[in-house]
């Protein structure tokens, strides 16, 4: 699918008027919109085959069965967090180069041309230009790929802290 850059601001303006999904399937799909890393879900490690294999290996340390299970789940949970950390780092949010580099002032005639068939007032054109400029500021504030991945990884610090604390507690509990 090709993106028409001239239509892009109009599409974004129209999207603002949307009241959200109406169908059940649409609502189900949009409920997953903010889901990025899935670290807030509680996976069932204990019934997984990985966990059983790990417990058997750790049992050779001479620890109790409860301690082995705690350590194995702690270790798997820590790995899950670190895998999400790596995924976030290696695939940062893409840069919208058109939005970042566009000249808003020079785009005013394009906006009026796009809006004029609907009989829009000059105020509408100004609103659209202001909206476009605010989006551009947001995009520029996010910076380049390194800034983006640093900001995204920064959000995972608390998951890493909790995972390592859980693992460390499990190892040192006996």
């Amino acid at each position, binding site marked *: 699918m090709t993106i028409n850059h001239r239509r892009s601001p109009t599409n974004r303006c129209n999207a603002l008027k949307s009241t959200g999904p109406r169908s059940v399937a649409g609502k189900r799909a949009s409920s997953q919109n903010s889901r990025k890393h899935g670290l807030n879900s509680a996976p069932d490690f204990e019934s997984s*085959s*990985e966990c*059983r*294999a*790990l417990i*058997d*290996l*750790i049992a*050779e*340390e*001479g620890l109790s069965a409860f301690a082995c299970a705690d*350590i194995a789940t702690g*270790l798997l949970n*820590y*790995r899950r967090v*670190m*895998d999400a*950390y*790596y995924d976030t*780092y*290696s695939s940062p949010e893409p840069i919208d*180069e*058109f939005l970042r*580099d566009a*000249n808003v002032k020079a785009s005013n005639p394009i906006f009026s041309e796009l809006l004029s068939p609907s009989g829009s007032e000059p105020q509408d054109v100004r609103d659209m230009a202001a909206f476009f400029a605010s989006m551009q500021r947001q995009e520029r504030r996010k*910076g*380049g790929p*390194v*800034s983006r*991945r*640093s*900001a995204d*990884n*920064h959000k995972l*610090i608390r998951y*890493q*802290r909790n995972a*390592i*604390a859980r*693992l*460390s507690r499990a*190892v*040192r509990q*006996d």
Partner: protein
Amino acid sequence: MPYNVHFGIYVDVAMPVEDKFKSLLPFLSSPKLLPNESEAGFQSGLQSLLSELANPSPLAVALVSQLNECLWWIKRHTVDKELLLHEAMARLLSKAGSNWMASGNSKLSVALEHYLEGSAHKDEAALIEQTLTGANLTLSDLRVRAFKDAARHIKMVDDLIHRQHQTMRHLQRSIDSIDYKSRLLKRMDLELAALESKQSAKGVLSLDDKPS
């Protein structure tokens, strides 16, 4: 019955401990590297850490491999701090040159990257020097301004590095705890054996002392 562990590694519960240890190692030390990173460097770091283990039990190896990954992340984030500065320098330079259009911006970024690495072509070096002169800036001025501009993101990367240090402290304490436990168990076994031998010697002596 083989267990399917992450990343396609199979661990059989009935296999001997040495084999399990070998199977577990790639699962927990799974080097998830970026395309430009060397696996040999990662593995040599891991091997040097493993060689310092007095008692390389599977759990200790698993924890040491996590420690090695933390060191790797610190390296990555340290490189990122410099890259953040480069990004900010390119941004400021393109603003100063009133050259904020798609083609000019990316061209300037690439040229600046080459210029800072010392591998810039003549025309790239000329472009950078011309833009710097036009903006009445030196490279060090630009770097200072870029540092100010990117301070928010540099602070974030510092937080990420700090987090890795904290994680390493947790892992180190856990490894020490395992080591201490195993040494304690050994010591108790030895004391028990010594007591048993004393007891048996006493028993022999008391049998000898009995009047016939």
